């Protein structure tokens, strides 16, 4: 992943956000967001609901105009260009398929708007159907007769049909069941690799972001908190919010050179006010920082087991270990520890 | 603008919109319907006791002051429905509503020619009601044709309101004396093409066009007369600036200078406006015309007792009571429709009208108008004439 990201950053910037802000009345939905997106990158913007990520993608697609800031496409200012004249396409959360039309008509929409002749439109539509793994027979089918997954693919083909330089995705997989979502995530990733287009993907699921993205941007309350490769985000979260957003983590505050939650001295080289320790790094046995924990809950995760722990001072911790961990029955106490080089230090 | 507001406020129903013709075939049809409907829907109505006195009438008789006075004088309750036209109300009686109504008033030919032969109205006791006629103008003295059956045996009702109904001019443009002399030829005058309106009381229009064509409306027509009627009819309808069923609109059109005159019209359409000071409007009855030398037409409203199988005990009392000066005064002014009543020959009633009111109904000329008019009657060949009339209307525009 790191290699891919590096390869992407070698490329020229296709879309440049500079101080992009959007206010609705008194509330700021997006605050001074600046990102340079290299051509061909798969960038995912992640944030909880209300973080302004949907507003941000609407700004990028031209469906909203920013209150301040500029947006440049290949160096050209497109801030004031309306959506229909931007060479970008958005896949909506609702998909927004034209239910009164067939699959073929949906896919051909952008070409029809440009005045492409019908026979060429059809040929391209059939190509696109193949691209999203739908057979030719779907061409004449009404959109309303398609299943959820098929509708996703039609929406994708419709977006591709406008031959966009950048594709935006506004949580298109959020309403789909888990297994289909996993399949489509992989397909989307493959599609990205095959087409080489720039993808900007919005989601609230960091897991989804991790699977697909070259880079991840994390948004909170309209602020861009951190941007980096998935590995960077995972290993070097900027703050406790980013760290906890990635999943369950253990956060230990440092006071007067100790971790008060476990009554253990903090390492001398503590590089921040909080130590972030991932559950898979808090393991049974003796490590650099070891303490006694009581098991309060044991959850089987298939090949792994998640243990909920309580320190003597009553603080909660999570550990994930391989196997079924039969020894760690609820109520028993054990020594757990982590190595200081596994700690990610944050100040906030 | 004041005048207009006033005119608008007096838009009222029309007691004269009375398609007038008779047809034995229709009578048979309606009798059939009446039998069926009565049997089906009104079995218990006739037996209903202590119902209010029920009037099928024009809105002058629905004046709340009049009805309140009746209630307080007699203690009898009263209810009413307002006519749409003479024939619709007569049709309702034919269809079985004789069991519903106690009182009906329509224009003069209906009682004698249709309602009495069809058994829809009762005759009145002559000893009680003949004396009322003695109190009226000379023209109503017994034996008065329209109050009696054809054999002159039966008294069919009491006449109350009556007036001529011919045309109306803007007297600032056309002097009344000239208009009375010229008569219906005013509408033949090419100078007034596009300067007059038509109040679409269509049976009256047919009679007026007869007059304009020099044809006696109430005589059998020759083919030559029909041809003259047709020519006049097409010309008059084509040359009309507007045709409407709303006389307030025509009065406004005169005030606005869109038109100078309209037919059919009379004090019925002008009195309320004149009373409010719109003296431009002037009702004209021609001095002469083709109907036995006369050019005007005179309607007479006849108040009759419906032949209800369960007669209301107060029905005859009501008929007599509305001729008393107090009640007749309210009828004459009823709901804003200022119109002469036959009882105005009695000084006691006459003296209650102000000079302005009398001026509004052009009372000084009233006797002359009546004298210059023939009485509203059945139009022979009506069907033929009406078909010409309606075809002319369709070809307009």
């Amino acid at each position, binding site marked *: 992943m790191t290699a891919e990201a590096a390869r992407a950053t070698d490329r020229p910037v296709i879309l440049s956000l500079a101080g992009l802000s959007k206010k609705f009345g008194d509330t700021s939905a997006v605050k001074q967001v600046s990102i340079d997106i290299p051509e061909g990158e798969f960038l995912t913007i992640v944030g909880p609901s209300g973080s302004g990520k949907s507003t941000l993608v609407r700004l990028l697609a031209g469906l909203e105009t920013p209150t301040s800031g500029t947006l440049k496409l290949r160096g050209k200012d497109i801030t004031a260009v309306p959506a229909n004249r931007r060479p970008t396409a958005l896949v909506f959360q609702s998909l927004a398929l034209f239910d009164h039309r067939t699959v073929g008509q949906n896919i051909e929409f952008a070409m029809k708007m440009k005045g492409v002749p019908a026979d060429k439109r059809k040929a391209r539509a059939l190509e696109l159907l193949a691209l999203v793994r739908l057979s030719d027979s779907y061409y004449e089918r009404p959109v309303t007769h398609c299943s959820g997954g098929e509708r996703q693919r039609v929406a994708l083909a419709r977006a591709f049909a406008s031959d966009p330089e950048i594709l935006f995705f506004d949580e298109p997989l959020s309403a789909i069941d888990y297994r289909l979502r996993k399949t489509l995530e992989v397909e989307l990733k493959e599609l990205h690799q095959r087409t080489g287009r720039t993808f900007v993907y919005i989601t609230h699921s960091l897991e989804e972001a991790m699977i697909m993205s070259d880079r991840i941007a994390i948004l909170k309350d309209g602020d861009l908190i951190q941007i980096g490769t998935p590995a960077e985000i995972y290993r070097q979260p900027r703050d406790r919010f980013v760290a906890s957003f990635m999943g369950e983590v253990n956060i230990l505050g440092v006071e007067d050179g100790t971790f008060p939650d476990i009554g253990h001295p903090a390492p001398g080289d503590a590089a921040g006010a909080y130590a972030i320790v991932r559950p898979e790094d808090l393991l049974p046995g003796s490590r650099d920082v070891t303490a006694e924990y009581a098991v309060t809950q044991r959850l089987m995760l298939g090949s792994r087991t998640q243990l909920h722990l309580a320190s003597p001072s009553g603080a909660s911790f999570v550990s994930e270990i391989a196997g079924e961990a039969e020894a760690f029955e609820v109520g028993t106490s054990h020594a757990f520890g982590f190595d200081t080089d596994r700690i990610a230090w944050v100040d906030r | 603008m004041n005048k207009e507001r006033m005119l608008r406020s007096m838009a009222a129903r029309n007691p004269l919109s009375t398609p007038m013709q008779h047809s034995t075939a229709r009578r048979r049809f309606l009798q059939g319907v009446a039998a069926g409907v009565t049997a089906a829907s009104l079995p218990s109505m006739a037996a209903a006791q202590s119902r209010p006195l029920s009037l099928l009438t024009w809105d002058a008789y629905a004046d709340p002051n009049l009805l309140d006075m009746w209630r307080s004088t007699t203690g009898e309750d009263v209810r009413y429905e307002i006519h749409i036209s003479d024939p619709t109300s007569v049709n309702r009686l034919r269809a079985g509503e004789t069991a519903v109504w106690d009182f009906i008033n329509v224009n003069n030919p209906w009682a004698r020619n249709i309602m009495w032969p069809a058994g829809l109205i009762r005759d009145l006791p002559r000893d009680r009601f003949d004396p009322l006629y003695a109190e009226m103008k000379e023209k109503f003295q017994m034996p008065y044709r329209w109050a009696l059956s054809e054999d002159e045996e039966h008294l069919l009702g009491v006449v109350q309101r009556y007036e001529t109904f011919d045309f109306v001019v803007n007297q600032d443009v056309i002097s009344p004396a000239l208009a009375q002399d010229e008569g219906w030829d005013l509408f033949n005058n090419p100078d007034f093409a596009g300067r007059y309106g038509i109040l679409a009381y*269509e049976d009256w229009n047919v009679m007026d066009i007869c007059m304009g064509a020099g044809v006696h409306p109430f005589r059998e027509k020759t083919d030559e007369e029909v041809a003259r009627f047709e020519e006049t009819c097409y010309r008059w309808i084509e040359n009309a600036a507007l045709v409407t069923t709303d006389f307030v609109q025509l009065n406004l059109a005169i005030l*606005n200078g869109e038109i100078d005159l309209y037919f059919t019209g009379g004090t019925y359409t002008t009195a309320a406006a004149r009373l409010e000071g719109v003296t431009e409007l002037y009702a004209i009855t021609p001095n002469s015309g083709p109907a036995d030398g006369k050019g005007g037409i005179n309607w007479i409203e006849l108040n009759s007792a419906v032949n209800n199988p369960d007669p209301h005990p107060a029905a005859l009392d009501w008929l007599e009571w509305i001729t008393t000066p107090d009640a007749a005064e309210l009828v004459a002014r009823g709901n804003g429709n200022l119109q002469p009543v036959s009882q105005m020959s009695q000084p006691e009633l006459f003296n209650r009208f102000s000079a302005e009111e009398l001026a509004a109904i052009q009372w000084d000329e009233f006797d002359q108008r009546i004298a210059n008019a023939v009485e509203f009657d059945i139009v022979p060949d009506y069907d033929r004439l009406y078909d010409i009339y309606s075809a002319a209307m369709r070809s307009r525009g």
Partner: protein
Amino acid sequence: MTRAGSPGPWFAAPVAIFMLLCFAGPILIVTWFSLMPGRTFELTTAFTLENYVAAISDGYARPMMWSLLGAAITTIVTALLAWPSAIILHRYAGRWASLVSALIALPIFISESVRLFGMSVFMMPRGGILAGSLNAAFGIEIGSILNTWNAALVGMIYIHLPFMLFPLLLGVSLIPADRIEAARDLGANRWQVMREVELPLAAPGLMIGALLTFVLCLGANAEAAILGGRAVTVITAAIEQRFNYAQDWPMGAALTVGVIAITAAIVLPVLSRLDLNRLTKR
């Protein structure tokens, strides 16, 4: 799908009988009458087509033409006026929309002839509200269209606008905002968005509005009478004359049957294309 012996048909029976009596019955009687000899009042088996022959030969095509023309023009003009109004009301008016809608709906509860009379006062020359105000404020002297066919058309448009606007408002509310955005995003300009997305999606409302307006206008009489000064005779007026002053029920019935047939020929094809499910399911 009711099982034999189920109570379904019994529950439906009152409605079916009601429809039969109140809908099919009158049409049957009117049709029967139309086959009777002119100016008769009895339903016999002496059928004749003379009334229909007369309807064609006696100049009734002209009133029918005026009615059809008036209905068509009114439908088109009200649609053109109501479309932007509905879009604006739906999209921009926000909480004012209900107030504005109420103001538009309010006149429906006032008698049509009162409103038309108000219009005629408005249109009157010299003393009329329009001409008088222009004269008083700007010294402009204008004529009047009162008592012309154009005045009748203005009246029909004024009276029937709500019948177009409200179904259309319903139709416009069927357009999801994201479909419009998607079309914009895919390169459609405003005109293309309207043609490709808004119109097809609002079509059920538009069609209902058009049908209502067209059929109501075909039966409209008061506008031509009050504002038009009977400059032309519309078919309704011609029919009324036949029934009322002419006392020619069979001829009036024949004309009525003719109008019903023409109306059905125009309305039924449109109605068959109307997808009521779209209006009710969403």
